[in-house]
């Protein structure tokens, strides 16, 4: 049992009046729901599979490769701040106590690992069912779900190691240890991805090794998790909860300060450097700030989308899914800046009051931009063969605009006002907003499968299509907001 120098044990404290005492029942209920979902999700997935002609082997292989990649995901997760979303009271009182930090953070890490593993298992099950409903069986689904769940669980357990390596301020950071861990994990992932079956001793040993590596890594570094970093993050979360004007979390910094204050924005000296842009349009575009890493991600996603549009074979269900997802992302990003909120935690957006005019303007601006490009695509491609090419371009941006509108409206000050007044009663609305993305992805998948979203390989205009998509990426990634004072 973890204990501190003054004799207080974790059990002493948590067994009596721990603030998180109700979490166990909550977690068990969530796991029960996940089990139910695991059983019924293939039925829905098989319906989607009707429009996704593909070989189940593709999906099975995809699960294995994704699981192997998941094992190196913690590098990025750790860089972005790690898995601990604890509040300031926990940082101040629990991490400020003599208790071993492993006793405070360990249960939270395990909770997250199980939650992510459950999600990974569900996703693997759905993918397996979509691969080929006729060949689908729960035994195969269990195999894929098991691999994905264990891989993701091991990945989450490794996250604190990378968090300490990236964000720790100690003179000696555990770079050699995490690098060795990464190398070992990559080797394990390679074994899992290339040669594994349910009864394979080698595969089972590899998975067990991955899990053990993660657990050992977590245990060795949890005591060194940088408390100042957790405090900074917890403060950002608390500020978000209390309707602060800016929210720095994970990937984006949303600041509507200057958007609210029109006069100051228009006085911006940098605006003169962009004098070609109408003032109102400038203001509506300039309120979302992003980091370079997000931009790299946007460019890569855009490039993938463009490559898929021109080269890939949509008869393959995996390609169709990837195209749909990338297309949705491009649409979101084109409809900047409201679309950019897709980079946030969907249900965590909280706009300040009095920002309604700005948000309305943002939606209008996004719609205009998407409309212009869609109209241009229609005009240029109307004469091409097949006619679906034009529909493809228009549909891509129409869905993006729709997504932007949904995101914009559901994240509006009206909702912020409701959240202030009604608290958790508006949670369903926030979750509807969170579901908007997956629903749109699903819709795009159907559209792709019918060939409405992709010019065929023999289209005379592949270069133009590529240019349109690339323009969308450029528009979405152009660092307008960086210029604001």
């Amino acid at each position: 049992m973890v204990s501190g120098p003054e004799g207080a044990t974790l059990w002493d404290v948590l067994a009596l009046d721990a603030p998180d005492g109700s979490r166990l029942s909550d977690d068990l209920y969530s796991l029960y729901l996940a089990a139910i979902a695991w059983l019924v999700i293939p039925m829905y997935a098989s319906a989607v599979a009707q429009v996704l002609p593909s070989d189940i082997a593709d999906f099975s292989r995809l699960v294995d490769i994704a699981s192997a990649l998941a094992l190196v995901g913690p590098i990025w997760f750790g860089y972005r701040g790690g898995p601990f979303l604890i509040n300031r009271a926990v940082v101040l009182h629990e991490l400020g106590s003599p208790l071993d930090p492993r006793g405070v953070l360990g249960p939270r890490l395990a909770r997250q690992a199980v939650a992510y593993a459950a999600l990974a298992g569900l996703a693997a099950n759905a993918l397996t069912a979509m691969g080929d409903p006729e060949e689908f069986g729960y035994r195969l689904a269990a195999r894929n779900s098991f691999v994905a769940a264990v891989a993701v669980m091991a990945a989450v357990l490794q996250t604190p190691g990378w968090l300490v390596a990236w964000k720790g301020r100690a003179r000696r950071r555990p770079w050699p240890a995490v690098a060795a861990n990464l190398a070992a994990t990559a080797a394990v992932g390679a074994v899992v991805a290339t040669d594994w079956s349910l009864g394979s001793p080698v595969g089972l040993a590899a998975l067990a090794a991955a899990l053990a590596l993660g657990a050992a890594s977590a245990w060795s570094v949890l005591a060194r998790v940088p408390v100042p970093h957790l405090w900074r993050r917890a403060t950002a979360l608390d500020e978000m909860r209390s309707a602060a004007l800016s929210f720095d979390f994970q990937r984006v910094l949303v600041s509507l300060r200057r958007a609210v204050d029109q006069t100051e924005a228009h006085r911006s000296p940098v605006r003169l450097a962009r004098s070609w842009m109408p003032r109102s349009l400038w203001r509506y575009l300039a309120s979302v700030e992003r980091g370079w890493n997000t931009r790299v991600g946007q460019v890569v996603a855009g490039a993938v989308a463009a490559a898929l549009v021109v080269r890939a074979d949509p008869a393959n269900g995996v390609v169709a899914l990837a195209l749909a997802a990338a297309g949705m992302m491009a649409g979101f990003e084109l409809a900047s800046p409201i679309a950019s909120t897709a980079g946030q935690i969907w249900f965590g957006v909280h706009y300040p009051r009095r920002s309604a005019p700005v948000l309305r303007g943002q939606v209008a601006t996004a719609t205009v931009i998407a409309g212009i490009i869609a109209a241009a695509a229609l005009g240029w491609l109307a004469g091409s063969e097949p006619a679906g090419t034009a529909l493809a371009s228009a549909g891509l941006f129409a869905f993006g605009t729709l997504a932007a509108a949904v995101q914009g409206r559901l994240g509006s000050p009206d909702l912020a006002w409701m959240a202030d007044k009604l608290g958790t009663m508006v949670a369903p609305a926030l979750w509807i907003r969170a579901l908007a993305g997956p629903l749109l992805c699903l819709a795009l998948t159907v559209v792709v499968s019918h060939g409405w979203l992709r010019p065929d390989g023999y289209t005379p205009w592949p270069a133009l299509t590529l240019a349109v998509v690339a323009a969308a990426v450029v528009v979405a990634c152009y660092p307008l907001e960086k210029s604001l004072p």
Partner: protein
Amino acid sequence: MIEIRGLQHRYGKALALDVPRLSIDASTVLVGHNGAGKSTLLLSLAGLLVPTDGVITIGGDAAGSPGARGRVSFVPDSPALFDDLTLADQMRYVARLHGGRKATPAEAANELVELLDATELLDRLPSAMSKGQRQKASLLVATARPCSVLLADEPTTGLDTESRVALLRGFAHLEQAAGVIIVSSTHDGELIAATPGRLRLSGGRPAAEPDPAAVGPVAPSPAAWSDEDGGSDDGGSDDEGADSGGGHPQPAGAAAPPPSRWRSRSRFSQE
């Protein structure tokens, strides 16, 4: 108790704190304008911010180390409370975190409950408290555990006049009865006047106290203007006393006597 050597902190390229040398052995109030570095210094002392450079020791242990954490309790500028525990449960919980299963809140905290007239808050959740009440609760939770240094970032913010007076009594009680060194930041003239030691920060650096003779007449305080009794000086004060030159009692920078106790015990040098 608190020793600072070569402390510097930068936010990006901006220098927020630059304290070459400082020792604090008695209760001290940090004063200065917004952005002077008061909160940055308190966070550094609490081990919640790693300074860009320099060393801070508290009772011989580096700030943020387990030893220092055991000595220091921190009251942040906005309350940090467990959402799903009543105030009484929070005080018990924090006491047990530090003292074990059978620990109870420190005696000083129980007395502070009486002084702050917070008995009715004990059975409430934070969501059922006003802003000022949460501020009181945050202070009570911080004092529920034994500590030798209490750091408080603007502890009087949001408190009504009576609560501010009660808080000052509570601080005095903590200092005298429990021997706690209280380091706080504030703009509250009453707290400044009531605290023996004073450290003025300007641009992140310790600054000399302004010469009282160079300060003009004290202006009427906003509290006095809005007083229902016609602006009498019956205890009304403003929160900006230290910086605006108004308030009652006299603002520290204008007419208060030099903080002899702190100056006799503390020392800092600007290099």
